[in-house]
Structure formats: C-alpha cells, structure tokens
C-alpha cells in the first residue's frame, strides 16, 4: 500500500499544483480587474489583459543606478533604422539588467559619523580602532623600521599583499592582514621604488642602476639592464606593461609577459620622479618641474596631452579610479583638482598648510594628502569643495609614499620611520568582482586568473586617451578632409613615369611628342581639379558674405547678368 502511494504521488501532486497555479492566476487577474474598475461592472477582455500586464511589470530601476551603468548617449531620435533601434533596445535592456544586479551586492561601504559640534578631523586612529571590531582594529598597525627608511610601499591589485622597500635596500613582502611574511631581503644598494607585477608571485625593484625582478621568496629572477636609473615604476595590469620613468628623463614600457621593450623614449623634461597611471585609459601621467603634466602612451613620442597645472614645480600627482579627476600639488602649497575627461579645470584649488609631497586617491575617491609627516584625508573634495580634512594623522618622520589598499578601508603610509597602516572608514570599494581581482582567491583561482588575463592581454597599440574609441565608427574628421584638400591645392601635379614599352622609338621626335602630350594632359587635369575646388570655395565665400551696398560701389564693374 505504501509503495503504491509512493508510485502515484509525484504525478498527482504535479497536476494539482499546476491546476492551482492557473486558478490562482485567474483569481488574481479577476481581483485586479475589480480594483481597476471599482463600480463593479464587468470589464471587457482587453482590460483584463492590461491588468495582467500591469501586474507583471517589474519595479523600475532608479535613475542614478541606470546612470552608473550607462555607457554613453543612445541613438538620436532621428534614427529610424529598425536594426539599429532593436540593437539600442538590447543595449538598454542590458544596462537595466546590470543595474538590477546591484540589489545582490552584499557589503556596505564604511563611514564615520561624529556628534554635532565635533569634527571628524580630530578623531584619532586610536579612537577609531577602539570603537571597531577586533578584526578591523588589527588592521591598524605600525612597523618601526628606522634603520633603512624612508619606505616605498605597494599593495597587490587584490589588496592582500604588501611590499615595502626601504631606500637603503631593505625589501619585505608579506600578507598584511595575517602578517604572514613572504620574504625579507636586503639588496645592499640604494633602492628607489618597488612594484608588484600582475599577482603576488613577482615584484620589480628599481635599484641604484637597474631594475630587478624578484619572486615572492626574494630570489632574483631578472636583471633588466635596459631599464636604468629608474625612479618610479607602475604596472598596467591589463596590458602586462611595467612602466618606468628614469632620472635621465626616459620613459619606458616593458612587456613583462614577453620580456620585450615595447617603447622607450626620451621625455627631455629632467628627472622624472612624479608618475601616476590613469586607470581609466592606461595612459601615464608625468609631473614636471615646470608645473606641467604630460600624458603618454607608448605609441607616440609626443605627449598626448600637455597641461600647465601650476606655475611652480610639481610635487605630486594622483588620478582617481574612474579617470575622472586628477589631483596635482606644487611647491606653492596648492593642491588642484582637474577634470581629466574634459581636460579642463581646475575644478578645485586648495591651499594647504604645507607642501603636499604625496597624493593618493582611494577606490571611492577620497584623497589622501601627505605633507611632511602629516597625512590628511579629504572626502568629497573633487566635484564639491571640502572645507576641512576628513581625517588627520601624524607619523614620526616625513612621508615617502602613500597608497590606499584596494577593497579595504586602509591607507598605507611609508615614511622615514617605517610603515603605518591607517584606518580610513569609507575609503574602500565594498564589493569586489571576483573575476577582476579577488582578495580571497586560492592558488588554483590565481593560476586560472593568470591564464585568463594573459589570453586577454590588451596590445599596447590600443592605449589611447579615449578607451572607447575602438568601438566607434571611423569617420575621417573634417580636419583630415581639409588637410587632403589643402594638399591638393598646394601640391604639384603628379609626376608620371614615362618609360616607353619599346626602345625602338627612343629619342625619336614622335616619342618626345607623345611624352609632352601626356604630361600636358595630366597637368591640365590637375589644374581643373584645383579650379573646381577653388570655385567651390569662392561660391561659398560669395554666398556667405553679402556686403551691404556702399556709396563707392557705383564705381565697381557692373555685374554680368
């Protein structure tokens, strides 16, 4: 009996539930129809359908969410091409779906709220550490390394590992959360910069003469003698390029996946000790002693952009994550914020208490300013003017380097006295994308991600100011068209190669005649082409400039009708 029941049950249950669903839906629609038409009259079929459709409509997505995922303006209303319109609809749908996924993000950003009448500037690190949970409190720590300082620092892309490099040759790599060391070595010579490569397995160190690459056990893998006297390094993770700027004013891009130098050329602007990467388009920004900032791609020996930011020598430079803002500081104690998309500004001009020797943007566009041995963090300082610092912290000796840890509310400060890890609530991106960079990745995941990243390595030729240019239609600009026309106007008639097929007539009168005829014909054609262009131009001029009749015009030759 039991078994029989078991056999029968599944289909029966299924059938019943199906019927239930249909009946339920019917009932719902009827109820809805009643609501729509509350005077009790029966509605025609169309209305029922409408009511049903209304019920199935999804909650609309907030406009600011859509704006966050938007990739630019849509089609203009003049477009009637059905294919394009369908495509447009698909794109809009994709944007909406992407915006809808925000509901699945689990973490919220950090914050710091103080009582009325108080200022968050006065809140000390100790106070913050005391009022957060023990795990977060352990992220605030100091390393006293006074012997080999000042220290340059670098976090890996997933924010898990930290690399310290003291000026006097001390290198230490460790997992800064668990404080588990990877290696600690001394290269026994002067050291200018340290930089992780694409993952925590390798790092580059700019030493006294050359750049060296070590693995995470401190074993020297490569000595790059083509990169010498390097002062600053940066890594372009999607292109696998190690960018270096040197004391003798050379800028170089080294492809670390092939070990090949992609480009290396002189900048001719003196010591290049201020460099930052624009993460939005992978261009390099260099700061110069003339107060200018230049942007470089490996494809052009001229700067893509040259902007005069200050009238004094530049001190520091930072670009925020979405490439919208650039912060620059100069020796006149000013810090300016620039709009990098429009290339104008300054949006903000701040006058600091001291010379800002270090600048750093966090994931959520908080700006850390290092002045002497004081770190100040500013919030909402780009689009709006910040009137006071969000946080302030003092370290023992002058600051040499600062970096916000990706995906954490942490600011790492390297100074003459060692390393300080500061808690800055609200600095880090709360929700990471595991396929992009994952702080919790295992060895296997790291290996897979490395292979994927290498497969999708972007070629250095694609580094441009506008990264979306590759998806646009290549329309020759008006300028190019004009240049082509101009070249025709000013050029000479094309020369023709007149070598006769047979040598029999060589030097004969007939051959010379033929040559002359052909040459003249080409010249004539050319002159006609130029005439056509100039007459077109003239017509335009005449139609544009209708002069008012003046008294002296009566002496002009009369117009032919």
């Amino acid at each position: 009996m039991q078994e029989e029941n078991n056999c029968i049950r599944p289909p029966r249950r299924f059938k019943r539930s199906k019927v239930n669903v249909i009946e339920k839906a019917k009932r719902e629609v009827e109820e809805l129809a009643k609501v729509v038409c509350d005077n009790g009259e029966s509605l025609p079929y169309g209305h029922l359908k409408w009511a049903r459709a209304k019920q199935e409509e999804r909650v609309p997505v907030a406009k600011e969410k859509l704006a966050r995922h938007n990739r630019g303006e849509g089609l203009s209303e003049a477009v009637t091409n059905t294919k394009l319109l369908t495509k447009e609809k698909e794109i809009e749908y994709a944007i909406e779906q992407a915006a809808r996924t925000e509901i699945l993000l689990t973490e919220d950003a950090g914050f710091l709220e103080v009582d009325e009448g108080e200022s968050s500037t006065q809140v000390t690190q100790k106070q913050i550490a005391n009022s957060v949970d023990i795990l977060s409190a352990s992220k605030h720590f100091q390393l006293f390394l006074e012997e080999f300082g000042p220290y340059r620092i670098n976090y890996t892309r997933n924010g898990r590992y930290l690399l310290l490099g003291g000026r006097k040759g001390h290198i230490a790599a460790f997992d800064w959360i668990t404080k588990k060391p990877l290696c600690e070595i001394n290269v026994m010579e002067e050291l200018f910069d340290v930089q992780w490569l694409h993952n925590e397995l390798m790092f580059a160190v700019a030493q006294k003469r050359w750049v060296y690459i070590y693995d995470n056990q401190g074993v020297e893998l490569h000595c790059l003698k083509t990169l010498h006297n390097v002062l600053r390094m940066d890594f372009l993770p999607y292109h696998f390029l190690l960018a270096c700027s040197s004391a003798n004013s050379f800028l170089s891009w080294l492809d670390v996946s092939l070990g090949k130098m992609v480009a290396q050329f002189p900048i001719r602007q003196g010591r290049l000790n201020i460099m930052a990467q624009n993460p939005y388009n992978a261009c390099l920004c260099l700061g110069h002693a003339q107060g200018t900032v230049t942007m470089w791609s490996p494809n052009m020996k001229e700067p893509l952009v040259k902007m005069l930011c200050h009238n004094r020598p530049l001190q520091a430079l930072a670009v925020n994550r979405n490439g919208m803002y650039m912060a620059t500081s100069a020796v006149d104690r000013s810090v300016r914020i620039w709009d990098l998309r429009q290339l104008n500004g300054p949006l903000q001009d701040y006058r600091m208490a001291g010379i800002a020797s270090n600048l750093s943007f966090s994931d959520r566009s908080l700006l850390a300013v290092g002045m002497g041995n004081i770190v100040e963090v500013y919030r909402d300082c780009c689009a709006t003017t910040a009137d006071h610092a969000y946080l302030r912290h003092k370290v023992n000796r002058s600051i040499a380097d600062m970096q916000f840890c990706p995906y954490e509310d942490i600011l790492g400060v390297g100074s003459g006295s060692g390393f300080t890890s500061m808690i800055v609530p609200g600095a880090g991106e709360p929700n990471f994308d595991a396929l992009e960079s994952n702080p919790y990745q295992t060895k296997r995941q790291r290996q897979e991600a490395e292979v994927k990243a290498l497969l999708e390595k972007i070629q250095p030729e694609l580094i441009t100011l506008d990264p979306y240019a590759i998806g646009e239609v290549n329309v020759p600009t008006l300028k190019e068209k004009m240049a082509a026309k101009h070249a025709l106007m000013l050029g000479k008639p094309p020369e023709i190669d007149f070598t006769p097929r047979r040598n029999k007539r060589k030097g004969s009168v007939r051959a010379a005649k033929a040559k002359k005829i052909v040459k003249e014909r080409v010249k004539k054609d050319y002159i006609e082409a130029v005439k056509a262009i100039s007459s077109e131009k003239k017509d335009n001029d005449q139609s544009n400039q209708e002069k008012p009749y003046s008294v002296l015009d009566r002496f002009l030759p009369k117009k032919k009708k």
Partner: protein
Amino acid sequence: MRVKVLCRNPDEYLRETKRDIFKVPRNYSPELHPLEGPREYTRALNAIKLERVFAKPFVGNLDGHREGVTCFGKHPERLSLVSSGSYDGEVCFWDLPSQTCVRRFQAHSGFVRGLTFVPDGNGLLSVGDDKTVKTWNTDSLFDSNEEPIETRISKTVLTGITHHQKKDIFATCGEACLLWEETRNSPIQVYEWGVDTLLDVTFNAVETDLLLSCASDRSIIIYDVRDCGPVKKFVMSLRTNKLCWNPMEATVFTCANEDYNLYTFDVRNLRSAVQVHKNHVSAVTCVDYAPTGREFVSGSFDKSIRIFEIDKANSRDIYHTKRMQHVTSVAWSLDNKYVLSGSDEMNVRVWKARASEKLGALRPREKNALNYSAALREKYASHPQIKRIARHRQVPKHIQHAKKELSVIRTKLVRKEINRRKHAKPGAEEPYVPERKKSVIDVQQ
C-alpha cells in the same frame, strides 16, 4: 561617534568544503571593469582566431560506391538515413552515425539519374538511364530481396525526378516533363515547351504545386501542375545544371549555372536575379538549400563545395580535400547540421555545416561562452583585422590560380566596357546593364 569599517566575513567568500565550487561574487559596476572597449576587442580577436583553429569541417567519408556518385535522396523523417546513386546504377543506403552502408542494390543499368523519397518515407523512387522509374521498399532495410516494388517504363530518356510534397504525384524530366501518379503506370501529363532535354526538375516545398525545371537550351521553365502546365520560361546566357527551391520562401529559388555562378531568383521578377553568387572557379554542378532557407551549399567542377548565405554574393565557407574530385551532388541534412557531398571519385563525404561548431551536447557554461564569443565576433566583425582573419581561407593551388586568372579576365571585360562607352558617339553609348540582369536574356510567358 559612529564608525563602520569594511570587514568581510571570510566564510561568505570562501567555499565550505574542498568539493564545493568556488564562490564568485560579482559587481558589474563599470568602474571595476576599466578598458572595456580594448578588452572586448581582444576577446573578439581571440574568438575569431579560435574559430579558425577549430574549423575542421570534415566529419567522415562514406566509401562503398564502385563508381562516381550522381545523386542523393534525403529521408524526410529519419535523419540518419541517406541514399545515394552512382554511375554504375547502384543505389546505397547509408547509416550516417555509424558511417556504414546498410544496404546496396543494382537499381538500373547505366547511371542512376535521380533519387527521391516518398514524403511519408515509405518508398524510394529512382530514375536511371534505362528509361525506367522504379519504386523501392525502405521498410525492410536488411532484406536481401532487391526487387523493386514497382517498375514504370518511360518512352523517353529520364534525367531527374521529384515528388510532390502532399499529393501522390511525382514528376520526371527528360525530353519532356512528365507528371506521374503513384497508382498509374503511365504519365498523367506531358509538358513540353520546345526543348530537347530537361536536366533537372524540382517541386516547391511551400507552394507545393509549382514545378521548376532547367533545360539544355539554357532555359528555365516554371510549371503549375494544377493548371495546364508551363507558366513561364526564361533564358539565361549559359546552361543551368541544377535548381533548388528555397524551402522557407515560396517564391525564391537558386540555380547552379555553367558560367561559374549561382543565381538566386524571385519568381515574381525574372528579369533580374536577386543575388549573383560568385566565387566558384568552374561550372557549378549542384545546389541544395539548408532547411532554414537562409543558406545553401553548392558543389562545383572545381573540386570544392561552397556555402553561401542567400543575400551575400561571396561564399561564407569553402570545403575541399586533396582527394575530392569534381563534385556532382550535394545535400544539406534536415537537422541543419551537416552537408553531404558526392563526387566523381566514388566517395560520399560528410561535412559540418558550420565548420567550427562543436558536435555533441554542450554544457551550459560552454554554451554561454560560445554565445558570448559569437556576439563579440558579430560586434567587432567590421574591424579590419578581425574581418581579415574571418575571411581568410586556405584554398588549393589550382583554385588560387584559376581565381587570379578569372579576376584578370573580369577586370579586362570591365575595362573594355568602360573604354567602349568612353569612345562611343555621345548619345549612342551602350546602356549600362547591372550584373544581376546580365545573365537573363529573355523571359517568355
């Protein structure tokens, strides 16, 4: 003072056991995914390269015929069964999954000229050089009885056969177009329009009463079997070898022409072709449509088969092997996945319809990845580098040379026409005739 600092619980981001799958939290914010354009482009480039890497269209070779293959018959209901006829009058039944010949019998003396299954799949009709139409049983596949169920004798030579989609009638061609009923021994209708030999005949799959045939005097004739017979006739500049109706669009058909081209026509306007499909470098001998009606396959005397989209002038793909000789017949399988080709050197070859498609069931992730790369390929299709890789095909030397020679000939013709026009008396220039109208000489009602 209220403080909140980011503090993630590792348990939410790490998998619980080693057998578990990895947790992959996603955040689709564009800020976390910089350089979208160049990265997509790189992926598209990889996708197109991989497509070419995986483009291995040859599935298998069915050998068993003792002479060149002349024609195919596609079973209307069973995907695995295909019949083929050969020059020596033998008909083979092939089981495609196992790539074996399951049945063979001597059907005719001389060539087998045409094969067609009865729409319900219960019989196979064959015509041969011996002026007979034979009906064969398809039920008892392994029966040793190799006698036809029925033999009809025609007075004239037969060169092709086609069966009506719904009614019990079929048509043969030869000296005239004959209409037969299955229950009768002699033709019920004879259609003639002053030609000596008809080469091919085919029924429309949608407008089932329309019949199309091509003749050796370069003409193509349209019949209506409900009516008195021939409806329209038009003459092309060279002979048409094979015809095929589009199975989805009732008015469209494609013909394989002797002048190296295929022409797609709309019955409503026969003065100009809808599209001229070039690329073959020798006479096109056979053509067959995909069941979707969007593509067709053609075989040629130049030892290659090509796949065309109906609205494109150039072929999507070319298939060839070292050993394949002149292609005499092609067929597109009814599941839209495979293409069959029969050629002079006694072999039937099975090809994939899409060269780089993976066969067999796909896992959902695999399917998603393939869909994604297909979308990328489409999005970046017009970028020069991607276009170049997508278009590039390695072709045999003889085709390469012939292609070069043809291009020289064609440019010469164009140049000559331009010169003639240039030097003609003003007002007396010959009119410009577009490529699509060039090959149609005359249309008769």
